[in-house]
């Protein structure tokens, strides 16, 4: 099985440790993951802001980069959702039947990390060790667009040493929403403030989620509030072991 890592533009440019954690984790599970260097972005920022024409060349780059792989794994519910549910729309907009056909190939092979681990590899115990008090925020697109269900929790429950605590109103949006965070910054911040308050109420040391962009938003608020809570991507916790602790 040829497996490609779709690291996402946000992780590539801002959170490379998330990508490295996926590589560490998948290699430990015996997957020789490749990084197609031609990849850029899933085009979601353009699509969700209404710039469909601008999304066309980005989706074209995506299908060219990932053509021929058996599975495309990404540490992002939102970007997986974009590839699975929006690329077809962009391809139709292009009017190019070759792009429509290429998207039909790559879309169903795109997996969010927890889906790939649980459904494709069939594991929930990935041999991780993380002795901290952790609360999990299910991001909207992983929950409601992809339907990952409780896969992330099942993976976290198997982590040695972890103390998982429930997040109040967990399924409510954190307020990131892509360009919404800037176009409607006041509303976005009001939503984020409530999410950050709920996180602090749990007494957790770490907030974990499957999307770095949502974590950047909530983490940015937790940091500004000097809460002391740090945010980590699911991949970073699953990659951590007794011998290789990630970020202490």
């Amino acid at each position: 099985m040829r497996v490609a890592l779709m690291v996402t533009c946000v992780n590539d440019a801002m959170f490379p440790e998330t990508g490295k954690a996926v590589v560490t984790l998948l290699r430990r599970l015996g997957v020789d993951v490749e990084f197609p260097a031609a990849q850029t972005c899933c085009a979601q920022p353009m699509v969700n802001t209404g710039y469909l024409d601008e999304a066309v060349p980005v989706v074209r780059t995506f299908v060219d980069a990932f053509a021929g792989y058996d599975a495309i794994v990404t540490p992002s519910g939102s970007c997986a959702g974009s590839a699975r549910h929006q690329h077809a729309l962009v391809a139709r907009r292009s009017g190019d039947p070759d792009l429509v056909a290429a998207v039909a190939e790559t879309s169903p092979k795109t997996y969010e990390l927890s889906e790939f681990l649980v459904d494709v590899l069939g594991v929930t115990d990935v041999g991780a060790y993380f002795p901290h008090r952790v609360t999990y925020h299910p991001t909207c697109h992983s929950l409601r667009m992809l339907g990952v269900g409780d896969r992330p929790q099942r993976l976290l429950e198997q982590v040695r040493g972890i103390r998982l605590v429930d997040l109040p109103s967990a399924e409510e949006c954190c307020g990131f929403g892509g360009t919404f965070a800037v176009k409607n910054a006041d509303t976005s911040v009001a939503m984020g403030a409530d999410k950050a308050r709920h996180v602090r109420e749990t007494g957790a040391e770490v907030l974990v989620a499957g999307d770095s962009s949502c974590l950047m938003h909530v983490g940015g608020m937790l940091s500004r509030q000097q809460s002391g809570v740090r945010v980590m991507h699911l991949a970073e916790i699953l990659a951590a072991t007794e011998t290789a602790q990630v970020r202490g």
Partner: protein
Amino acid sequence: MSRTFVGMPAFPAAARAALADTQLRHNLAHATGVIRAKRAAVVAEVENWEELRLAGAAVKDRALRDLGTHLVDLEAALTAGGATVHWARDAAEACAIVATVAKAHGVDEVVKVKSMVTQEIGLNEALAEEGIAAWETDLAELIVQLGDDLPSHILVPAIHRNRAEIREIFLREMGGAGRPAPADLTDDPAVLAGAAREHLREKFLRAKVAVSGANFAIAETGTLVVVESEGNGRMCLTLPEVLVSVVGIEKVVPTWAELDPLLRLLPRSSTGERMNPYTSTWSGVTPGDGPQEVHVVLLDNGRTRALADDVGRQALRCIRCSACLNVCPVYERTGGHAYGSVYPGPIGAILNPLLKGTGDPQTDSLPYASSLCGACFEACPVRIDIPEVLVHLRSKVVDGHRDDTVPKAEAVAMKAAAYAFSDARRLAAVEKVSGLAGRVLGRFGRATLPGGRRAAGRIPGPGASAWTSARDLPAPPAESFRAWWKRTDGGRR
């Protein structure tokens, strides 16, 4: 109601004002939380809820797919039942028809059943200009009308008011509109409802003409259906001699049998009840019983425009339950007024642009008034994929500006991003610059993020300052993932 939504600012500005109102935030969080919990409990009782949603959506789709035929059938059945059917292309035509009927009976007042469509067309204001007072008889609509306020919710238009505010409005305003509130009025809900009942009763008994909308219009039998909780609707629909019902053409349901899933979906989704207390149905005129003159105004007002939109037409399935408002994290924080329309919340964010067309700055801001979290789609009893329609409408807004001589900054940024994202080598070059910038920003940043990264601090400029006013932003890392992979062969050296 003399205030209107005309001239409202675009959503972000209106939302900013609403967010600053802590009393409003508190009222909304409490009220939406209560309704959300009630809805969740009664929906969980229904074993086949998902099948019911599919059935409800299918009924509305069948009606919309062959709308012309069903409407002609509806007109024929209504006419056969003794009703007079009018067709109105827009708000002005519909208002003129209602005014003409009222004036034909020489009245200077009408009583009203709560109806979204009459608010959509601004009927009360139009009748006021003709010297006809339109009295709202739904409790929450009465609160809004007496307070010279605007509705902020489809089902609970006074959701932004708490009972202390309602008591003040009743004491201050009821006397000017009819029977005054008792001087010893308390803010106990039962006492407030009692005052409204006394105030309204004289209007019910006096009125010759009533105006309603309809939740459903059954083509097969020419039957209109009104679903309500308070009994004020039943009073309006049975006591006056003349009844005028304004009905959006999307309200048509082909047959009686197809009403079944809709009547089961609506109360659980809207008020969180298994059944609504009152369901009134009437098919034209029944001699000697109820109104002896029945008019039905079938209204387009943008519905055929929405129907022509192959992605957006699903919004016409809406049965106005407001479940999407109650679960929306944006609505919960901004309230309904920020949407600048009688249709607020997620459904308003799609319905307004679909009915009115895009191009106006206020309307064009609505599809962006969402984080696309998808809670609305999950709650919608007729499965309107609101996030899908929002994204579709955003593309219509953007396409409407493609010929601008001076493109918006956002359009320039998106074109630049598309250029960088179309070739990994270009992206790598951008990341190299951002890595350098990150080292600089990190040096001047005021904080270290929990976990060790330097924060970039507050950054000037439109997008960046909107982010960093309340949120730290990590300084970009010195090395991107792709640069690391290339340098270390994926960590192997």
